[in-house]
């Protein structure tokens, strides 16, 4: 039996989490909580979820021993290959789960927010498959830097709405999706793409993503004969990280490192690292660490990677930080670029810029762990969507 039992009935992880939304959404959230609590224990639901993950997504994803990277960085490095999932990232695990819930609740319309576009593509994908109307909100700036994913969503039949308000990135897309949901609560299911938002989203998304860690735990025991010394994952909202961490949470000897986006550097203020540098506050339905000014206004974030460009973070990470169970660190844009090139050249794997932050930190961690130390990096997604950004930064015309 697990010793860890977060969150409580109202969605609190210690002082974090909870439900902070306008009254109109209280009832829909209660309905969703009831459905989630019922189906997450329902054998038929779980069977359908597992089957979809196996036959449609292609799970289990491999745990791959990265010999080249291990040699270069100086530790035993394994990659959890979420980049090999259908649609190219871990995001699909969660969208499959939530779409199955939407179907059981009889909702005909699905909405989502997206930053990098991976969650938008994953949502458009499941909507196409289930024949549901799909609207994806995306910051106008992100639409520019993630053009291939915008086109993929459109091919899949989704409407992509450009969000021009605020900082024109992920947080504004989330605001707009919430406004849509309030307006269409009766027929609409909002698929949030990360472990943020009001309860039950942080717990529900974690439970759908926990397949990553369950597989990885079994795979590392088979391949290395023991548990790893450390887990490393990038943290935007924190869904790929919690998905890997959660099944190891009672394994006290396994250290956990969440890697935030340090942008131009933590000292410059131009970053997206609320756990490293933020303050506790309330945004998007939960209490967590946030990037905000002294007046409580949310500040603009900066990251090379659209998927990490978010001023908040899932409340469970805030709790894991305060309780000391997990460590939160950050990698700059240029460190992430180095990580990107290292793994591409040494392993023949082109990672997403988000995941490249985890690779970047693994280099520092390897030096601490030493040659016999074992770590698992969550390779949360593949880099096809980022090719244009990479080329631009490297000064190459394509």
């Amino acid at each position, binding site marked *: 039996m697990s010793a860890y039992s977060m969150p409580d009935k*109202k969605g609190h992880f210690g002082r974090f989490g*909870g*439900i*902070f*939304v*306008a*009254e*109109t*959404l*209280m*009832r*829909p959230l209660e309905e969703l909580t009831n459905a989630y609590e019922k189906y997450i224990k329902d054998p038929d639901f779980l069977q359908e979820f597992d089957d979809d993950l196996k036959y449609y997504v292609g799970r289990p994803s491999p745990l791959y021993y990265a010999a080249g990277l291990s040699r270069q960085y100086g530790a035993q490095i394994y990659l959890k290959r979420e980049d090999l999932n259908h649609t190219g990232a871990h995001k699909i695990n969660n969208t499959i789960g939530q779409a199955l819930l939407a179907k059981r609740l009889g909702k005909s319309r699905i909405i989502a927010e997206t930053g990098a576009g991976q969650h938008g593509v994953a949502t458009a994908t499941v909507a196409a498959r289930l024949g549901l109307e799909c609207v994806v909100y995306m910051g106008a700036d992100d639409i520019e830097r993630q053009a291939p994913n915008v086109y993929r969503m459109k091919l899949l039949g989704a409407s992509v709405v450009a969000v021009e*308000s*605020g900082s024109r990135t992920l*947080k*504004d897309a989330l*605001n707009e999706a*919430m*406004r849509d949901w*309030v*307006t*269409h*609560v*009766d027929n609409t299911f909002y698929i949030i793409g990360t472990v943020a938002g009001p309860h039950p989203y942080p717990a529900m998304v974690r439970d759908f993503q926990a397949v990553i860690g369950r597989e990885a735990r079994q795979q590392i025991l088979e391949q290395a004969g023991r548990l790893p010394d450390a887990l490393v994952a990038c943290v935007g909202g924190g869904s790929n990280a919690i998905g890997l961490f959660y099944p190891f949470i009672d394994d006290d000897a396994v250290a956990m490192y969440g890697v935030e986006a340090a942008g131009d550097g933590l000292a410059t203020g131009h970053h997206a690292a609320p756990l490293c540098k933020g*303050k*506790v*506050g*309330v*945004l*998007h*339905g939960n209490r967590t660490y*946030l990037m*905000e000014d*002294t*007046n*409580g*206004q*949310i*500040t603009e974030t900066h990251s090379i990677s659209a998927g990490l460009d978010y001023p908040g973070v899932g409340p469970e990470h805030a709790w894991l930080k305060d309780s000391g169970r997990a460590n939160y660190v950050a990698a700059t844009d240029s460190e992430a670029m180095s990580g990107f090139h290292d793994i591409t050249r040494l392993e023949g794997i082109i990672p997403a810029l988000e995941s490249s932050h985890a690779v970047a930190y693994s280099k520092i961690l390897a030096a601490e762990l030493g040659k016999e130390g074992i770590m698992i990096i969550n390779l949360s997604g593949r880099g096809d969507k980022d090719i244009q950004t990479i080329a631009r930064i490297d000064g190459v015309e394509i």
Partner: protein
Amino acid sequence: MSRIEKRFESLGKSGRKGLIPFITAGDPVTDITVPLMHAMVDAGADLIELGIPFSDPMADGPVIQKANQRALAHGTSLHDVLDMVKQFRRKDATTPVIFMGYLNPVEAMGYDEFVEAAQQAGIDGLLVVDLPPEEAGELNELLYQRDIDPVYLLSPTTTPQRMEIVSLEARGFVYYVSIRGVTGSAELDYDEIQQSINEIRQHTRLPVGVGFGINSPERAVKIGQHADAVVIGSAIVKMMENYNGDKQRVINAVSGFLHSVRDALDAISKS
């Protein structure tokens, strides 16, 4: 008795429908807010809702979103908004002022400091859009101690069970959101609104104000037939979009509009 209770009591006695305009503090410029508040009272406002600007107004439609951005563009902070109310109180000691906003600026200031400052400034009510009663215990204790009324939204999706929860925490009046949607949305379903108001009155003895989507004297009258007060936000805030540096022009426009709503509402009380 709080200023809000007193105001609703005297409205009830005179059979007058309450008129509650909403503006965002500091929109479009800092020094328009206090004169605008006085002008709104002169034009027939019974209570005033003053919006605290926030970077991420999730429950607001485009009109009030832009108002928030305009106010934040020149740095309107919660401290500034408290100062505005202090100034307003120098000339007006009776019109209740209700703060409406989002939780994070209040959290950033700290509950104790905020509640004390709010009382000193002369704030009468606080409506925090993203703070449901379930999470409000700590803040409400402080508010009750200082006679500031926590005001709550009820919506078409609120169940009778939740109405009970809300009415336990609410003081002053309850605010029924007339639509499923954000502020400023278009269509109103008057039958549903009437039914909901009747239902709400089964659960609370507090007066019922109705808002979201009331943008004309005609709509105000239809709502005023059932509600104790109407709240008008986006229709007023929209007038700030035409601001060209001439404050008096905007103030006159708002006053003219409120006068027309006032006259229309007074016609129902008489009939």
